[in-house]
């Protein structure tokens, strides 16, 4: 029985001219999104890898210098472009891609791609994820809104049920039929995207891509069930369509924006000026209530005691290197604190968005999608943390060289390529899929809740299916 309904719905959808036109338009948009995304990815990936190599070369060939001059020269960390960013660019357009790793300062990532786009970019970038999060659901709605209401309006629903098919079987058959048709229509673009991914990144990203596919399928199922329930309960096809369109616009665009803006009002990020002032105060205040000068003096006294000498000049090491180290400890702590404040504000904003995703499965889907594609806030933060850890190690190494290999007051001390080579290159290792998944718990839960709620709604709807139109 289910199979008959399934086959009928499947063929009906595939024979509908409007559906085919819509599918063709979606395919064209998908291909444009895929092509532009892939082109951008390969350009960025090549450019950043080349820049990272160039920076490494500049570093080793910077000539003879005092290590502290080299520390001020510093290196750059470039965030590598990840293959799945062509599918879901996430927040990367609004994040800097390069961080200058220099002495005393933790710099912000600079070079946001969004700064170089037209104002229309704020309408939303045309990416594959956008096609699948916003446009495909609309297509699903248009395919499903009349599934029950039309049968009721034309009187065929009554005839159908008279043949002995139960409302539940009818529902399952319609769901499977329409969903299968949608899958068939969307298969080309999914296969193309998988092919592009394989060409770009081999099989490394395949598990993430398959998980993405599963999550998007889950979203599709939720939406299709919801659309069918509305179709079965609405007073007319027209009403079903209006309700579904309103639902789509609200959950896809209104709730995410409203929640994000609400987040800004409730948990504003500090301004850059306040941030920098905080850093300055932190540095001047010193660590653990001990002003910088006192801390330096205490360390000097300790060293004088250890080396059993009276004066700083008699130390077998260059105390200046130790001072740089202490200054770095203090400034690192100051930056950590301000970044923690900034990140806490952003986290609160994301929490608000996550909470709001209960009203908008699309918001939940977007959050999971960014995580799995490696383009979320958390992934950027991981990169920035890795760059900062590298900077701190680099500075510690240079300070140690000054301490050990030069004498007090010896401003003429120079190190060369031997030292520069020992510092190593910055190579960023993206986070594992496991970490991405661990962070996606809450939004995944929201999607599962939506699934449970729609299944419940299906059960309730099929138990008392209205057969005649009012």
């Amino acid at each position, binding site marked *: 029985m289910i199979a008959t309904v399934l086959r009928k719905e499947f063929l009906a959808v595939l024979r509908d001219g409007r559906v085919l036109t819509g599918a063709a338009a979606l395919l064209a948009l998908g291909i444009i999104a895929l092509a532009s995304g892939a082109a951008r990815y390969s350009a960025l990936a090549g450019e950043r890898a080349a820049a990272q190599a160039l920076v490494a070369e500049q570093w080793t060939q910077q000539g003879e210098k005092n290590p502290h001059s080299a520390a001020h020269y510093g290196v750059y960390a470039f965030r590598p472009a990840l293959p799945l960013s062509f599918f879901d660019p996430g927040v990367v357009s609004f994040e800097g891609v390069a961080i200058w790793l220099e002495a005393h300062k933790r710099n912000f990532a600079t070079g946001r791609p969004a700064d170089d786009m037209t104002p229309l970019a704020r309408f939303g970038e045309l990416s594959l994820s956008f096609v699948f999060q*916003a446009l495909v659901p609309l297509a699903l709605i248009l395919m499903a809104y009349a599934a029950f209401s039309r049968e009721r309006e034309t009187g065929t629903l009554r005839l159908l049920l008279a043949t002995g098919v139960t409302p539940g079987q009818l529902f399952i058959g319609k769901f499977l039929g329409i969903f299968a048709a949608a899958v068939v229509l969307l298969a080309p673009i999914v296969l193309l995207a998988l092919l592009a991914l394989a060409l770009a990144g081999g099989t490394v990203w395949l598990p993430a891509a398959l998980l993405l596919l599963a999550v998007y399928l889950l979203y599709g199922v939720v939406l299709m069930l919801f659309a069918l329930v509305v179709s079965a309960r609405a007073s007319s096809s027209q009403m079903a369509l209006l309700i579904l369109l*309103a639902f789509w616009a609200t959950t896809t665009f209104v709730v995410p*924006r409203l929640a994000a803006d609400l987040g800004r009002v409730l948990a504003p990020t500090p301004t850059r000026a306040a941030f920098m002032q905080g850093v300055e105060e932190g540095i001047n205040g010193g660590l653990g209530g001990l002003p910088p000068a006192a801390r330096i003096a205490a360390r000097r006294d300790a060293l004088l005691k250890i080396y059993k000498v009276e004066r700083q000049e008699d130390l077998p090491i260059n105390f200046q290197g130790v001072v740089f180290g202490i200054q770095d400890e203090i400034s690192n702590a100051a930056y950590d604190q301000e970044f923690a404040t900034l990140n806490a504000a952003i986290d609160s904003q994301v929490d608000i968005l996550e909470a709001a995703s209960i009203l908008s499965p699309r918001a939940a889907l977007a959050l999971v999608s960014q995580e799995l594609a490696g383009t979320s806030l958390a992934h950027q933060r991981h990169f920035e943390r890795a760059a900062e850890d590298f900077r701190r190690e680099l500075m510690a190494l240079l300070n140690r060289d000054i301490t050990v290999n030069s004498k007090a007051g010896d401003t003429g001390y120079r190190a060369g390529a031997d030292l520069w080579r020992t510092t190593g290159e910055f190579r960023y290792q993206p986070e594992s899929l496991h970490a991405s998944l661990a962070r996606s718990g809450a939004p995944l839960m929201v999607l599962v809740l939506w699934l449970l709620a729609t299944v419940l709604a299906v059960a309730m709807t099929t138990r008392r299916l209205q057969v005649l139109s009012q």
Partner: protein
Amino acid sequence: MTSKLTKIGQELQLLRRERLAPWSFVLLVLLLVVAAANGRALLAKQNAMAAALRADYATLVAALREQAGRGVETATAPGALGFSVLANPAVLPPASLGPLAVGQSDLLPAHYPITARGAHTFLTQQELDNPLRLALGNFDVAFVIVWLLPLVIIALSFNLVSGERERGVLAMSVAAGASITDLIAAKFAARVLSVLAALTIGILGAALVTRVPIASATDALALAGVWLGAALYALIWFALALWVNSKLRNSDQNATILAGAWLAFVIIAPALTNLAAVTAFAPPSRVTLTTELREASEAADRAAAADRDQYFFDHPDMQGGEMDTSAYYQSVARSEASIEQAIMPLLAQFDTQAERQQRVVSGLQYLSPSTLTYQMLTALTGGDGMRHREFRRQALLFHQDWRAFFVRPLERGTRLSAADYANLPEFAFRDSPISHTLLRVAPSAGALLLVTLLLLVSASRRLRRLPLI
């Protein structure tokens, strides 16, 4: 005439009794006001930031002036002051209508810390924000108008004619001796008038919530422009709905077509326009800018090292000590100038490409009423990037004055006195006159009006020959 007015009045009464219509008007007004309240929070933050920056600067200057009076060395040394101590925040005051259409203004920096160092040091700075929020977009009045208003209009009028036909009302009215065109015209007018009324109340409410100083002629004109833009946008969607109805399909088909039009105009056209502009005139690489900046800094460092060697060659007595600060900062000034010279042409390339992209957008915007309206609204509220571009231009000019103020005495080898602090250059942003903006958006408004009229004429021609069932 009076009978037509009566009909419109009757239709308004009917509209009021429909379940959907009154709620959608309330919703529209509510959304506009919520969006404005939201924007007000942003405006308050921007104002607070600007005030804090100015206050910090004033405190610092007062302290330095007092120190200079006592002859404290750092407060009188032009090099140290200009290059290390003093930064004058050039602030772009938030536009009073800014919160209504945020546009690019949450992305572009609203202040530049101007020092005697090169312009590259401040031009590439950005304000801190939540990137996820930036990526999702703002919930501002422009969003409600450009994205949501058409949905309300579609919901109200997708079955304007088809619904009546399907219910057999048209045939009945004719049988009762009524004119069909009058009936449709009255239904249409009732809907247009209600939406325009809701829009007017909503925009006035938004202006009240954000406390737009309507008493100022400039802001009143800009607000009127926003209202006019929104009204024209509403009209074109009504005209489109009527036109689609005049094709005599059934209500479902009308709804699908109008939803498709919404998708095409609001989502796809702007995205493709942006893509076309960015593809045709790809921005220069920020990564290259970074590596070039590094090369230029390294070259400047080598030159500075040479300066230093020369200094100690000229002053053998100073060997093993530090350069005197004046010589040191003269060297810094040369480094900064040379880095700036190397980097500014690269930064200029970004501007050139951005202008070319803008030209593509200006051409392609006519493909979608939504793009046109968004551009129009952001232009009127100063969120379209033009106001910021003007700010940057003025800030760069100011930067030259500011730098000269310190570099001249540095080169002459003179010191600053407490009295000189009174002559520190001050930055005050001058907005371009509103007439320029109005002229800039006039063609867009004209295009919206023209297409609306064409759609209405075509629809009314068809509707005169309307079959009754």
